[in-house]
């Protein structure tokens, strides 16, 4: 007899396998899982492997990663040795990627894990690994199926539920929050996700077809017009694999997003949730834009952090993403700040300072930076999302001839698909 918690863990595993990485008969799956003291993370991994075999996977390879071994290496190993990557490890990935392996990550991000070691050495190790496998990454993410997920490592749970006394209880609360955010508590989560994704796909097709010239956001402290470039594409939910299989790189996902026109943003926008940026909190802040550029900002907390952010480069003063998320979405309803983009960016309608996604523009993935800018897509080294949606937010689509059509009313979708 499995406990309710184990049943939920199993449902979460099913979602990751069937909706996330989209495993079909004959697929090869590589799972990269984090080693921790929490037996539930190992159990989730076992459920994922079971679920993949049940779905007909040919072979499931599990790579266990213990962040502690990396930490020990960074703390103790000779600096000259930090670039070493065993060639068989690269071969392992090459073999699998060439055979079309689908990849699923089961990991948690402890924001403070490397706080007490030399950051530069951590970067050196990460960079060496990245560089050793960079030739297979384009195939791994553009040709093969992939998905990520998040599990409550202690350091992350400590951050999100700092007010809870017991460390075990913090992890339990984070599991609960993750299950709620990923629709695990629905009677049939896989069907619920299929319906959810269908809705996202219909809405993004509707909006792409409309080709609005701009969006107009109005709400408390917000009166903002965001121009959209010609040929903008609304994205979100699923990606399509070469075989026609759909997969969902992020679970949860709620957003439908596209690229704004970098020079056609005017007005003022007020953030509706705090932003955690490089370990610091920015709260109750507003930006004013003129012809795309930030011309003024204010913040109750973290104004100097905003200054650092927009000083990153010229593109950091322009918008690179606009995303619509209904206020009733599970993450928004939880009211929890997850300190994890995978969750937080699905909490509300949001915009991002910095680089635009080329895939949100027709032909964008074949353009160089100059061509992207020419087409209206922003270029920057950074990309920072912040939440602007609320229960009182209205969003209109503005057509080329200036007429307005309601897209969201009081934070909810206002058009049928």
């Amino acid at each position, binding site marked *: 007899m499995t406990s309710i918690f184990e049943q939920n863990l199993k449902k979460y595993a099913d979602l990751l396998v069937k909706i996330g990485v989209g495993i079909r008969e004959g697929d090869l799956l590589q799972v990269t899982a984090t*080693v921790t*003291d929490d037996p539930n993370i*190992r159990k989730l*991994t*076992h459920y994922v*492997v*079971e679920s993949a*075999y*049940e779905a*007909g*996977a*040919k*072979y*499931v*390879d*599990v790579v*266990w990663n*213990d962040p*502690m*071994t990396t930490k*020990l*290496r960074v*703390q*103790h*190993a*000779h600096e000259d*040795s930090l670039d*070493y990557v*065993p*060639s*068989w*490890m690269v*071969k*392992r990935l090459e*073999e699998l990627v060439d055979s079309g392996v689908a990849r699923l990550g089961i990991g948690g991000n402890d924001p403070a894990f490397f706080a007490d070691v030399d950051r530069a050495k951590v970067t050196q190790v990460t960079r060496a690994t990245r560089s050793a496998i960079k030739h297979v990454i384009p195939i791994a993410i553009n040709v093969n199926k992939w998905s990520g997920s998040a599990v409550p490592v202690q350091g992350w749970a400590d951050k999100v539920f700092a007010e809870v006394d017991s460390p075990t209880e913090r992890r339990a609360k984070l599991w609960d929050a993750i299950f709620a955010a990923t629709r695990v508590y629905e009677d049939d989560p896989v069907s619920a996700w299929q319906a959810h994704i269908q809705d996202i796909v219909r809405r993004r097709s509707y909006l792409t077809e409309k080709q609005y010239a701009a969006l107009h956001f109005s709400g408390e402290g917000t009166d903002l017009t965001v121009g959209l470039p010609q040929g903008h594409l609304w994205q979100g939910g699923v990606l399509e694999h070469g075989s026609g299989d759909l997969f969902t790189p992020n679970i949860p996902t709620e957003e439908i997003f596209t690229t704004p026109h970098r020079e056609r943003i005017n007005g003022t926008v007020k953030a509706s949730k705090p932003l955690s940026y490089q370990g610091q909190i920015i709260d109750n802040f507003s930006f004013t834009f003129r012809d795309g550029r930030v011309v003024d900002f204010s913040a109750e907390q973290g104004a100097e952090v905003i200054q650092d952010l927009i000083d990153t480069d010229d593109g950091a003063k322009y918008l690179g993403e606009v995303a619509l998320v209904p206020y009733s979405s599970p993450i928004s309803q939880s009211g929890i700040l997850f300190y994890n983009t995978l969750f937080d960016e699905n909490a509300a309608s949001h915009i991002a300072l910095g680089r635009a996604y080329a895939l949100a523009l027709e032909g964008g993935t074949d353009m160089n930076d100059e061509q992207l800018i020419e087409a209206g897509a922003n270029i920057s080294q950074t990309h920072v999302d912040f939440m602007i949606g609320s229960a009182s937010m209205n969003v209109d689509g503005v057509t080329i001839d200036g007429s307005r059509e309601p897209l969201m009313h009081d934070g909810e979708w206002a058009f049928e698909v």
Partner: protein
Amino acid sequence: MTDFTETIQKYADVLVQVGLDLQAGQRLFINAPLEARELALAVTRSAYKAGAENVHVNWADPELDKIRLRDGSDEAVKAYPDWVVDGLLQHTDAGHARMNITCADPDFFAEEDPDRLRDMQRARAVKFQPVSERIVTNVANWNIGMSPHPAISAKLFPELSPEEARAKHWETIFKMCRIEGDDPVQDWKDHISNLVKRANYLNEKQFHALHYQSPVTDLTIGLPDGHLWETAQLGMKNGTYPVVNIPTEEVFSLAHRERIDGVVKSTKPLSWNGTIIDNFILQFSEGDVVSAQAERGQSALDTLLSTDDGARSIGEVALVPHSSPISQSNLLFFNTLYDENASNHLALGQAYRFTLAGGTEMSDEDFNEAGGNSSLVHVDFMMGSGDMDIDGITADGEREPIFRNGEWAFKV
């Protein structure tokens, strides 16, 4: 640091500095199941402290094999990716050190489909053949360490809660592995040097035979000309001298397969192929078992002895004092690494070729001709006790005391 963290770190230091003889600048590859995480991390730390250039932990999850057996297709059961072995070979051929942490449930696969299990194990064995070859030819330093598996902790201490049993199991391992002093690494160097001195003494003596006597045993075992007494400290081609087993208490050599006469009674249960054989008496004549009687496990004993001709003779003779920690614990660990260091023991079956001068270069026939035994099996059984005396008998028939009342009887 808590006491436990400190002690496990000392244990890891012994495994790295004595067990592996890890050299500064060497890379280390650790095979460890997830159940052994705390030890694997402690060994990683010790290895870096000893100057390792890189430590890679290859985590294994035995549960995944079980899932594959139950839910995987036939193809999945037989699949064994090349990169696993490639990785091991790359490390070994480059002269990197290797440590296996053993931490397994002996009954883990008891309920699985035997045919699928066999297919899976066969696929692995075939792929691992090149790795095994490198291990027996002593290419680079290696070592086996042990971490408590919950299933064994429960067998050892059935009356305790899982947490208490684990704590007690660790405590036992620390005691067995001589980790309790202030400087266990130095204690181990002294211990090994003592064993090596005893081996050297016995090698110089070149006794013609050993005579074992106790109230239940009266056995004479001939030793071949050129026999070599060895310890678990082995010389590797990369110039290192690892102590491949920790703990180790034994000094061992080979018997002359045709000169074993008398009677021997086991003093500890023998766990063989999942069956316990206990309180058994073997009668030898001219090197062969002529009668075998067990209070428990008679048919398993008969099966063992009928494996082949060599299974009825002795391949290994090992001397372990009765006062050694493992002997004193009176526990059966279900793991040869520990159990074979529990007392004086003999092994039925195959002799180690390196325990005979020139043995590794001999043909099978020459090895047998010289007195070395050959068999598919090599099964150790304990026969020492606190009231056992052993004499060395020289070629001209003189006797010298080797053991008295279960303890070494000569000074080195």
